[in-house]
């Protein structure tokens, strides 16, 4: 377990460094310096360069860069909001995105688990078919199709929910985006839970548990679900990727002032600093979540936790 932990943390750190290096290189080779649009003399540029440490050797600047990124100093925005520190831009936006993403994950996982369990327990019935249809639809249709459907029907036609996100009524106006965003999670989790549950339900240890006389919730939760859940953790990585890409689109459709819509705006207005800062934030979140998930996996599964040296893989 110790070796497994160390290895996972090591890989995460190296990945993060690799991303920082890529981002740093992009900044280095990006056309123009931060001061080229101002009417400055060569001397003034040199002074500014010295002030911001741009005259130092590359390796020192890379070191500084890593320090800045890790402490949340992402520089200033050029075009979106001139000379505003990016950290200020993020302050209000990051919590909104995390909240909607979190809501979608929780709601999606819950619904997905329930659907998957029902489908497996009622295998080959109408419930099973229904779940399969829902999960194929959820995986197949891009989240913006759901977003459009929802905002057209429930928002525009029926006027149950607001069409756009409103910062002053975050609960009501986040219903549609959360639902649209969670469809992919629902589908993936439901599909995977069903397969895993079916496999577990057909296993010998379930028969043994039943022959011990265990039944009802204890049988399903303690014996079946606990075993089925372990591999389900592995789908979390693709889910997070799906959520990140999904959030870009969803935030655009519902005008949510989060980091997803900020990234879209930054890309469309070529605000490099913002793009790079957001790339770093997305990567760091992703790496962090994957690391936590992997460690969790090891903790939950005694076969990994108690393995004595786990060899190469």
């Amino acid at each position, binding site marked *: 377990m110790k070796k497994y932990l160390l290895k996972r943390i090591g890989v995460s750190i190296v990945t993060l460094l690799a991303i920082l290096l890529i981002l740093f290189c992009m900044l280095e080779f990006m056309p123009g310096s931060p001061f080229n649009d101002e009417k400055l003399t060569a001397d003034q540029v040199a002074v500014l360069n010295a002030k911001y440490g741009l005259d130092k050797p590359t390796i020192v600047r890379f070191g500084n860069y890593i320090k800045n990124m890790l402490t949340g100093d992402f520089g200033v925005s050029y075009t979106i909001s001139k000379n505003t520190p990016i950290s200020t831009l993020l302050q209000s936006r990051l919590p909104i995105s995390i909240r909607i993403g979190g809501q979608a994950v929780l709601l999606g996982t819950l619904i997905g688990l329930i659907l998957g369990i029902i489908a497996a327990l009622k*295998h080959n019935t109408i419930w099973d078919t229904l779940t399969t249809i829902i999960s194929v639809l959820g995986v197949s249709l891009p989240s913006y199709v759901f977003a459009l459907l929802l905002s057209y029907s429930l928002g525009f036609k029926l006027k149950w929910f607001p069409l756009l996100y409103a910062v002053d009524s975050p609960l009501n106006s986040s219903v549609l985006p959360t639902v649209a965003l969670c469809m992919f999670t629902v589908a993936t989790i439901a599909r995977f839970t069903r397969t895993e549950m079916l496999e577990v339900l057909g*296993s*010998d*240890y379930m*028969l*043994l*548990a*039943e*022959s*011990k*006389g*265990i*039944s*009802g919730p*204890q049988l399903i939760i*303690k*014996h079946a679900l*606990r*075993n089925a859940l*372990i591999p389900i953790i592995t789908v979390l990585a693709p889910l997070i990727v799906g959520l990140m890409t999904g959030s870009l689109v969803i935030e655009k459709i519902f005008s949510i002032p989060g980091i997803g819509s900020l990234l879209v705006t930054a890309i469309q207005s070529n605000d490099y600093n913002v793009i790079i800062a957001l790339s770093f934030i997305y990567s760091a979140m992703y790496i962090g979540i994957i690391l936590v998930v992997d460690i969790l996996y090891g903790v*939950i*599964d*005694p*076969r990994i936790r*108690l393995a004595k040296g786990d060899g190469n893989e």
Partner: protein
Amino acid sequence: MEKNTILSIQDLSISFTTGAGEVSAIRGVNFDLHRGETIAIVGESGSGKSVTMKAIMGILSSNGKVNSGKILFSSAKEDMEEDIDLLKLDKKEMRRKINGKRIAMIFQDPMTSLNPVMTIGAQIMEGMKWHYKTPKKEAYKRAVELLQLVGITDAEKRMKNYPHQLSGGMRQRVVIAIALACNPELLICDEPTTALDVTIQAKILELIKDIQKKLDISVIYITHDLGVVAKVADYVAVMYAGKIVEKGLVNEIFYEPKHPYTWGLLSAMPDLDTNDDKLYTIPGTPPNLVNKVAGDAFAPRNIFALNIDNRLEPPMFQVSETHFASTWLLHENAPKTEMPVELKARVERMLGEAKKDGE
């Protein structure tokens, strides 16, 4: 049902709905088991041994259907006097009253029959806590005792282990401990030694036999290994294509077999003294039970088949007080048919050895 009978299966018939059609897996099974005794059910794979046991445990897969019959079970424990038909209990009652508490089962493959994410201790204690609300401390104490009973050293330490940390033989011992946790009266062993190393097989069999004596429980063995049967059983029932074709005391089946299928099984048993170049095999393959079986299911593979076998199913003929066989060869009009000479020689050899052992 006689006073000392613990289990009586009467005319049990079970079918499964599959993609290929309706499979009649069990076609009228009858047998009784007396308290404290052991019956071995022998047959090829697919003959319906395991299905019968699953029916007793109430763990048939969802596409299985009981068409007719009774499984009468009588308990000696005070809170249940009458005989009950296990097939009439619903799943919930079955789990609460019977499974684990009165009838326990040991499965074939100890590598897969333990829950990989629960400790050994938790799995042994679970049944006690579930059925009797045993306090944790008491359950723990009893679990350690059980582990010692099944011959696991370092029992306290093993309680915290997970299945993957134990060897196959150890795991089967744990499975036995789990089965014994709630003092069952009947233990069903579904090929308990097939998945184990030969060296461990004998030990596990000895263990079950010891425990049976100590705790006075009845045991049903399912096996295709006649060697196991000879070691452990009081009674033997030979199954073929969902029916019992011959049953009797172990000596009757081994020394005076009457059914041609039993002859085949005995002849096919490898043994050191056989000088034949080739090991005998029963010709052909068991019938596909999707198709309706007309007459005797074994007839197409039986070199002693009579014309009537293709037309009518043979009834159970009584050979002795305890010995029954279902073959038309036992009818008074049938031509006198003896077991094949090779088998005869073999039986005589076995009888000789048994005598020697007895002296």
